[in-house]
């Protein structure tokens, strides 16, 4: 089976003589649903950042989607990111764009025509139950609705990998359910690899998953 993520003795930090993650080795098969848990400040977001190239490995090797992340070039990173969908804790929607255009972002970047992306966006807005909000702007929506928009955006370009950082951290029950359903759906129907960072694995999860836990800079497999 193809490996989507391979880490070998991966160390991560923001400053030179500090370690957030130390010498982590793990690999994630394509199509796996992965949960990463850990206490607040344990380095979950940091690990996720390394997976989309926002920080470079301090030491060790990291491969994502077959691309070496150590000293990656800007153009290679842009290419990789066009095949990844990310959901952030703080949504990161573009305030001055409509909901519809926000969902369209990955398709705009990949250069799809208005027709194709228009249909795709309508379908996704249906999945996240936000068709009636398509013309609004992010600040006009509730937090839960904004995260559903971000979820739709992460799915828009059929990514090979979805990274989610505490996607339902402080959302209402309904929005959380929509998001978990979509992540599970993408995993089972599209075989998308999913990596979710969370402090609590919801009991409603039905798909088989792998569980890693971060503690004191070490990553170990729980199940």
């Amino acid at each position: 089976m193809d490996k989507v993520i391979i880490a070998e003795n991966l160390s991560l930090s923001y400053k030179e003589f500090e370690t957030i993650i130390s010498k982590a080795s793990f690999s994630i098969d394509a199509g796996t649903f992965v949960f990463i848990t850990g206490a607040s400040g344990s380095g979950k977001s940091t690990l996720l950042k390394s997976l989309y190239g926002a920080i470079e490995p301090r030491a060790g090797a990291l491969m994502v989607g077959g691309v070496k992340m150590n000293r990656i070039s800007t153009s290679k990173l842009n290419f990789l990111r066009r095949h990844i969908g990310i959901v952030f804790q703080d949504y990161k929607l573009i305030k001055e764009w409509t909901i519809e255009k926000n969902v369209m972002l990955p398709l705009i970047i990949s250069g799809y025509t208005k027709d194709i992306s228009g249909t795709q966006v309508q379908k996704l807005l249906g999945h996240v139950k936000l068709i009636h909000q398509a013309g609004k702007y992010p600040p006009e929506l509730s937090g839960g609705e904004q995260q559903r928009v971000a979820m739709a955006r992460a799915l828009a370009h059929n990514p090979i990998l979805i990274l989610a950082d505490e996607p339902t951290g402080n959302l209402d029950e309904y929005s959380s359910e929509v998001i978990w359903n979509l992540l599970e759906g993408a995993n089972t129907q599209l075989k998308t690899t999913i990596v979710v960072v969370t402090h609590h694995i919801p009991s409603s999860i039905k798909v088989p998953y792998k569980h890693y836990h971060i503690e004191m800079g070490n990553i170990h497999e729980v199940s």
Partner: protein
Amino acid sequence: MKSLKNHISLIIALFTVLFSVQIYVAVDRTISAYENRLKNDYSIIVVSNKALAVTEFKAMDSIIERSEPIATDQVLNRLQGEMTKKNLDLLKLTLPKFYRVYLSRFPTPEEIQKLQKKLEKNPVIERVEGYAQTHDTVYKLMLLFKDVVQIFSIAIAAVTSLLILKEMRLWQFQHAERMSIMALFGAPVWLRSAVLFRLAIVDAIIATIVLCLAFFVIEQYGWMDLLLRTVGISIQLFDFLNDALRSLIIALGVSIILTLTIVIGSEEEE
């Protein structure tokens, strides 16, 4: 709609730059038109003991454009009754020749003095009158005017630069978030900043159009023309082809440099 206010301040800033450049150009144009007028009125008198052709004068200094002999016949005619024809012919031969020498441009006082010295060195030439004294005051006044305008436009440029700088920071702040989000989804730099460039280009075009309209109104109203005509000058305050094109290039240049600064400044990302 929210960003309309920012558009307006950039357009005003660009317009101010264009307007001050245009004023400088117009003043320059006025001064050279005035210089031209002075040049046509201005000549030096050369007295020589030998007839000199125009080509001979031109060979003496490149600034000399043409020369005209001053007719002595009138004086001689008056003497006709009192002198014999033979004496008169003799006088005609010995009388020095007078020339009015015109220059190709309006000279500085130094240029006149240099020219005067140069001509006087010529053994054929007996005397040169450069009228440097009367010429001096007019010219000094003109130079003063030019200096004042220059200082004025530099002051305007300085103030506008500050305005644009302030605008630039605002833009950087407003667009940084969107640009970093686009980067997270793999948008290349040109795509991330395409909107900025589009805005900058649109603003530059609008500023140029506003400038054209402003000068159109000024020319329609006609008081500038009237003012200039009273001092005997007729110039084109704004050339709707060349000046508009230059303004557009300046506006595009300024706004694109501004945008590039923002784009390069927002390279770092989370």
